[in-house]
């Protein structure tokens, strides 16, 4: 079985190289027959990798179910599994280890490749061969790692009696979902990247590649974002330090591409609406992919030692080479095609939606740069000075908070401004209520005794919340006036008819909900430590905890001590909490899963650290306000993305011409909508609409001639 697996990986590597070469030939020579052969290679690679992964899972699975002889000869199994590992978590071992992660990663990439270039798509006929070539080249790199450096089927010289087992921190349901989501995000940017390269090669940096890759970008962006939220949820429920985000290098290396991708999905809108920023969009796609590769590199090579880095190996040089290729190749291509990227750069006024979009791109990039530099800084100082100067959470909080506030403010302002330019009257009408709301919230916060930082956050949150409500309200009111719909139906119709815009606003609302949760839980946390004898009490805010004693719980691979704690909420009984201390002898590692009493107002978060020498019990207790809002925000983020990305049958793009046609018509719709919502003066509306209609008419005219 191991030999078959290794052979299959070699075959997949050769097929991928062959397909990449054939794709390049087909792209240059426009040869249908060669393209068919390259496309076959795409399917073969996917099939081989799938079989391989399947075989691998079976190998690992057989051990887990103990149906097979306990063959701890497979190095990977010995490293990531043991006879004590609970069956349910055997799968987690797949991404707990190096080779397993890479194999899983390659498998995702091969599936994405099949879905993106495995079939002929009329709209992208011209771009597909080159994109196929790029995607298979990327797959070939990962297959190279799997065959030369990290063979998942590598055998140990001597079978060992038992494996090392899975890291106990990973024994959590969250770990079944969180890593695959992050990988889906990392891998997902490969498809937009490949099509961007193809668009540059074929000098077709227009609406078509953008419309097609929008879905892929959204998928990667969403899975990465959801992975981050789930990672926070896992940390909060498992690690027992009272928080959900530790500015851990591994979290950071997923956050950085997410920030760049967020800049991208906004900047794409400007190209669609105004034919601007073509070069920026290609650059952002390249950056998002390169940073994903860097994220994988940092995560998988153990260069940054952190709680997540469970795997370390010698694949670093390969990754560095690949990273260099991903940066140098596209840069050369960009410079070569600079002439094509000169877009219709006309900005009528800085105070316009495209103006705020530009600023938004800058601030997102600044945020990404700051997080990236903070993450890499210890490595740099180690190289330069020989000591690792640590960059801990306080640094990130201080540097990131002002940038995040800036982004939240832009999130409020941007949608309120119309395209092109904003007249003074419109500006006043649009900003009046949000500003009043922001000021009101800030004044109330100050009266209630908030610090300057919290008051600043309150202004921005109040302003942006009001701006989002106003957008929904004015949009719906405009529909009521124009179509005579009842108000509630008009609200729903906004989500149905202008999915991208109002789905986007839902995501904005989600970000705001998360922001409130973060501010609440960071600024107003209460924490107590106490060592209690049975019957003793600990006061934490409104709560009183009474320690009732401990008992042991049987577990296959750990010693589990459960502490019983009765909770009084303002003197009234509020149930019993049972925090645990799980000690894993194999790892000499204790884990402190907290007991959490969660309400919308706050979480009571109790950690049992163990018994001290005289038999008393040691506890740490947090009261974390508003943490639930963060998870609610995660759900709203999902809903908003679904609304924005839901395929629209009316707007399905079949050809490049169709994409262009949709774009010119959509511009007129946007103008109507903005005018209806009061964002345009009568004069500007007439002028811009005449211009847009003229352009559309000219376009439809040339289309009819074809």
């Amino acid at each position, binding site marked *: 079985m191991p030999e078959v697996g290794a052979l299959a990986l070699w075959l997949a590597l050769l097929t991928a190289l062959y397909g990449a070469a054939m794709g390049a030939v087909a792209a240059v020579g426009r040869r249908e027959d060669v393209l068919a052969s390259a496309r076959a290679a795409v399917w073969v690679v996917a099939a081989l990798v799938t079989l391989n992964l399947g075989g691998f899972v079976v190998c690992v699975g057989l051990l887990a179910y103990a149906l097979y002889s306990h063959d701890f000869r497979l190095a990977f199994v010995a490293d990531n599994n043991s006879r004590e590992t609970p069956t349910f978590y055997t799968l987690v071992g797949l991404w707990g280890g190096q080779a397993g992660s890479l194999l899983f990663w390659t498998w995702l990439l091969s599936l994405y490749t099949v879905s993106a270039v495995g079939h002929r798509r009329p709209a992208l006929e011209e771009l597909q061969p080159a994109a196929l070539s790029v995607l298979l080249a990327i797959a070939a790199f990962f297959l190279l790692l799997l065959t030369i450096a990290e063979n998942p089927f590598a055998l140990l010289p001597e079978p060992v009696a038992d494996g090392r087992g899975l890291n106990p921190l990973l024994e959590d349901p969250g770990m079944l979902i969180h890593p695959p989501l992050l990988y889906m995000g990392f891998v997902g940017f490969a498809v937009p990247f490949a099509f961007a390269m193809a668009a540059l090669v074929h000098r077709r940096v227009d609406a078509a590649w953008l419309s097609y890759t929008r879905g892929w970008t959204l998928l990667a962006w969403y899975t990465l974002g959801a992975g981050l939220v789930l990672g926070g949820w896992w940390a909060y429920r498992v690690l027992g330090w009272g928080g959900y985000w530790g500015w851990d290098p591994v979290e950071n290396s997923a956050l950085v591409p997410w920030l760049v991708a967020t800049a991208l999905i906004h900047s794409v809108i400007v190209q669609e609406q105004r034919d601007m920023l073509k070069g920026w969009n290609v650059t952002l796609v390249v950056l998002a992919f390169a940073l994903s590769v860097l994220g994988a590199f940092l995560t998988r090579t153990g260069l940054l030692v952190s709680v997540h880095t469970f795997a370390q190996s010698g694949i670093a040089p390969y990754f560095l080479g690949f990273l260099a290729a991903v940066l140098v190749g596209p840069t050369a291509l960009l410079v070569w095609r600079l002439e094509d990227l000169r877009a219709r750069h006309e900005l009528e006024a800085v105070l316009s939606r495209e*103006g705020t979009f530009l600023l938004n791109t800058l601030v997102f990039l600044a945020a990404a740069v700051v997080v990236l530099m903070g993450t890499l800084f210890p490595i740099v100082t180690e190289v330069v000075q020989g*000591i690792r*100067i640590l960059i801990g959470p306080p640094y990130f909080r201080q540097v990131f908070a002002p940038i995040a506030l800036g982004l939240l403010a832009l999130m409020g302002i941007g949608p309120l401004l119309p395209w092109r330019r904003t007249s003074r009257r419109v500006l006043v009408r649009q900003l009046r209520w949000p500003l009043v709301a922001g000021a009101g919230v800030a004044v109330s916060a100050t009266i209630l005794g908030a610090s300057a930082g919290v008051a600043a956050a309150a202004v921005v949150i109040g302003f942006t919340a009001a701006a989002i409500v106003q957008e929904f309200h004015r949009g719906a009111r405009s529909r009521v006036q124009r179509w005579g719909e009842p108000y509630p139906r008009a609200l729903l119709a906004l989500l149905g008819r202008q999915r991208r815009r109002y789905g986007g606003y839902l995501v904005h609302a989600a970000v705001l909900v998360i922001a409130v949760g973060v501010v609440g839980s960071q600024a107003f946390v209460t924490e107590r430590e106490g060592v209690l004898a049975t019957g003793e009490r600990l006061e934490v805010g409104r709560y009183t905890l009474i320690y009732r004693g401990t008992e042991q719980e049987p577990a296959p691979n750990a010693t589990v001590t459960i502490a019983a704690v009765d909770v009084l909420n303002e003197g009234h009984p509020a149930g019993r909490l049972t925090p645990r201390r799980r000690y894993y002898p194999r790892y000499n590692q204790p884990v402190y899963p907290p007991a959490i009493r969660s309400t919308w107002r*706050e979480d009571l978060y109790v950690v049992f650290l163990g018994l001290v020498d005289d038999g008393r019990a040691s506890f740490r207790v947090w009261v974390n*306000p508003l943490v639930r809002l963060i998870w609610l925000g995660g759900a709203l983020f999902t809903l908003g993305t679904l609304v924005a990305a839901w395929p629209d049958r009316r707007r399905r793009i079949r050809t490049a011409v169709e994409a262009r046609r949709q774009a010119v018509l959509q511009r*007129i719709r946007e103008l109507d909508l903005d005018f209806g919502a009061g964002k345009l003066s009568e004069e500007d509306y007439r002028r811009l609409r005449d211009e847009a209609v003229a352009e559309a008419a000219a376009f439809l005219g040339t289309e009819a001639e074809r």
Partner: protein
Amino acid sequence: MIVLVVTLLLTLGAAATGPDLDAQVRAIADRLMCPVCQGRTVAESTSALAAQMRALIREKLRRGETAEEIVAYFRDRYGDTILAAPPREGLAAVAWALPVLAVAIGTVIVGWLLRAWTRPPGPGSTLPRIGMLPEEALRRVEEEVARLESGDVDRSGRDGG
């Protein structure tokens, strides 16, 4: 959204009490990295050493030492690597300067682009003027827009939901 803001305000009100000893301990512990963990501050860490350090901070605060004195004490004993945020001196100061520099460079770039791209609306457009287009073409555009709005798939009237 309104509920959200009100919730935040209520929380503000509930939490707006003066900094007690626990909060002070937490604030100081948050400025120190736990020496035996990876990437956790003393405030966050569940390790025994971090618990001892928090107890020591509490003890020192009771004795009337200031936050700066306490941090300096730990810095003397463990070196610069104990500091959670790098000191604003020496090589580490670069960590503080870089974000400012990044934002400054970005602002210059965007300011330059805005200047270069800003152009007042004028007759420079190469597009056909609306008056020069046939009535028929304009009507067609309006039909297409209305169809997008009402949700018909095409003229055969298939429902587009």
